[in-house]
């Protein structure tokens, strides 16, 4: 499947009760790619993912998922897609093994698939434990196991690592990368910048509209932002004043330093000079880019 387009949809639109949640979104994900899906809360990421896996019918738009029509072949799409929901959605009153056996049964997989999956994801030692008594990290591992057991060609992950410790997150991402190497395409939504940077390409959505997509480097370059770092003994007060200065976009404290970001280097340096400090250029962070994008989208909405 690597190479062929896994997701190719355009014009996706969905509204609930007169409120447009997803507005004319086009999304292309190549086969074998790990695509990041980013955007503020309520920007329509979950709705998009649900439309892609056939859980919601788009009001408008068309396209294909794994070569299948996203509007008419929802059933076939579901068979080949693994979808990990944002909220843990397996049965808390069933054990790990029972949950997996249930899923295996629905996909018509042999019992051996359950044993293999338990082994693969290191769940064997806990297989008789009730899902409800698992910690966040283990729940997430169970959910991942359940969605990849049937060897889907496309994996949709909706904020899979929310509330999971760094160790478990790293293991999770290693697992995702291993699957992608095996040819599985992954679309993952996240709020974490470090996770966004682990993706081959990222797609940023705000207020239901796709704002930008590309590799991390492309997205950062495309934002045309300048970031300067300033050392200060009293960074809090300096930040207060800088935020009101012309030409200054964002001021973010990093310990005793401040990261000052703006669109125009000359004006930014002038603002710092007025405060009697000098800045050194640093790389603009993805977070700064996203916050800028969010502000731009907000302006567009008004």
């Amino acid at each position, binding site marked *: 499947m690597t190479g062929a387009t896994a997701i190719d949809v355009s014009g996706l639109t969905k509204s609930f009760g007169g409120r447009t949640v997803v507005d004319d979104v086009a999304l292309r994900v190549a086969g074998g790619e790990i695509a990041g899906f980013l955007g503020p809360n309520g920007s329509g990421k979950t709705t998009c993912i*649900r439309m892609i896996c056939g*859980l919601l019918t788009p009001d408008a738009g068309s396209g294909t998922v794994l070569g299948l029509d996203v509007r008419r072949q929802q*059933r076939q799409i*579901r068979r080949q897609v693994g*979808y990990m929901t944002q*909220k843990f*959605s397996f*049965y808390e009153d069933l054990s790990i093994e029972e949950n997996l056996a249930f899923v295996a049964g*629905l996909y018509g997989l042999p019992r051996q698939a359950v044993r293999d999956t338990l082994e693969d994801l290191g769940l064997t030692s806990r297989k008789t434990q009730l899902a409800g008594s698992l910690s966040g990290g283990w729940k997430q591992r169970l959910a991942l196991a359940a969605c990849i057991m049937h060897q889907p060609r496309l994996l949709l992950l909706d904020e899979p690592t929310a509330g999971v410790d760094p160790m478990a997150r790293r293991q999770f991402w290693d697992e995702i990368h291993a699957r992608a190497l095996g040819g599985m395409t992954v679309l993952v939504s996240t709020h974490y910048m470090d996770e966004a940077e682990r993706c081959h390409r990222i797609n940023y959505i705000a207020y239901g509209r796709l704002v930008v997509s590309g590799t991390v480097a492309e997205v950062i370059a495309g934002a045309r932002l300048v970031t300067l770092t300033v050392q200060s003994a009293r960074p809090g007060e300096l930040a207060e004043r800088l935020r009101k200065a012309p030409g200054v976009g964002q001021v973010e404290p990093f310990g005793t330093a401040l990261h000052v970001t703006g669109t125009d280097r000359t004006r930014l340096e002038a603002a710092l000079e007025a405060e009697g400090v000098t800045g050194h250029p640093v790389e603009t962070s993805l977070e700064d880019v996203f916050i800028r994008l969010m502000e731009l989208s907000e302006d567009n909405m008004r």
Partner: protein
Amino acid sequence: MSFSPTRLRALLRKEFIQMRRDRVTFAMMLGVPIMQLLLFGYAINSDPRDMPTALVAPVQDRFSRSIAAALENSGYYRITHPAAGIAEAERLITRGEVSFVVTVPADFGRRMQQGDRPQILVEADGSDPSATSGAIAALARLAEGAFRRDLPAEPASGTPEIVTHRRYNPEGITQYNIVPGLLGVILQMTMVMMTAMALTREIERGTMENLLAMPATPAEIMIGKITPFLTVGAVQVLVILGAAWAIFDVPFVGSLGLLLAGVMVFVLALVLLGYLISTAARTQMQAMQIAIFVFLPSVLLSGFMFPFRGMPGWAQAIGEVLPVTHLLRLVRAVMLKGAGFADVVPQFAALSVMVAVLGALALLRFRRTLD
């Protein structure tokens, strides 16, 4: 902290907003009292009148006509089958199509003219004692007054003697009626309520999204959900029947197999009704409320608590679409009257139609997506 009217106002406002947003609860709060008022006020009549009666009179003469007129004038009897044969009358009362069979012997007229005391036999369906007790009590007055006035005053006319016979339940023991009825009502309560939560539980726990994302068809999900409850229902049936037999000494004259078959069709209708509720409700609480909403008429309008024939037409019409109404008829007919399959075909047919309609509606209502 001291009492703050401001805080109280904020709390009240929030509670009222939430109450208004929860449409189902709001509708229940207004709907249930109105429904109860209407039911108790108009539908319930523990002294039903105009009950269907078959008249078995081999000789149709002025005597038999006078008796029919006297019975109808009492208000309790309505002669629906004025010239029934003995076998036909037997069938009618077994099936519950008539509540009374009045037999006027062939020699009644002759013996009246001879100044004798000829007998009239009134057989009442005692399987629901409260429904027929008023009509039986009225017979005594008829014998004394009405018959005499109605029967042609002739020289040397005799006085008829009325013999009453409560069929199926000669002592008028109410448990005989209540216990089989409880079978239906208890099943209705538990089955509908349990299945009503089947899907809403999935929705509330967030597992529905996952279930829908996996390849399972609506029919598979439905059958998967209702089958465990069918099993629970079967166990309940055995427990209730066992208790009826062991504790309440309810006589059991009919076929156990036929009874169980009928009850299981009923249980199937109930779990499908519960499942249908489940497809419509958003939360378990709503599902529970709708289940209770359906439960009330099932107790009040099915003939369980109050005689079916005592209800006005509209209430009987509602009763006819409730599964429990048909189950009660079936159970009384089979358990107490020993009815065979041919006698309860209408009940089987009604319950089967309900199963088909409820199953089809549930599948139509089932949302395959989260739209």
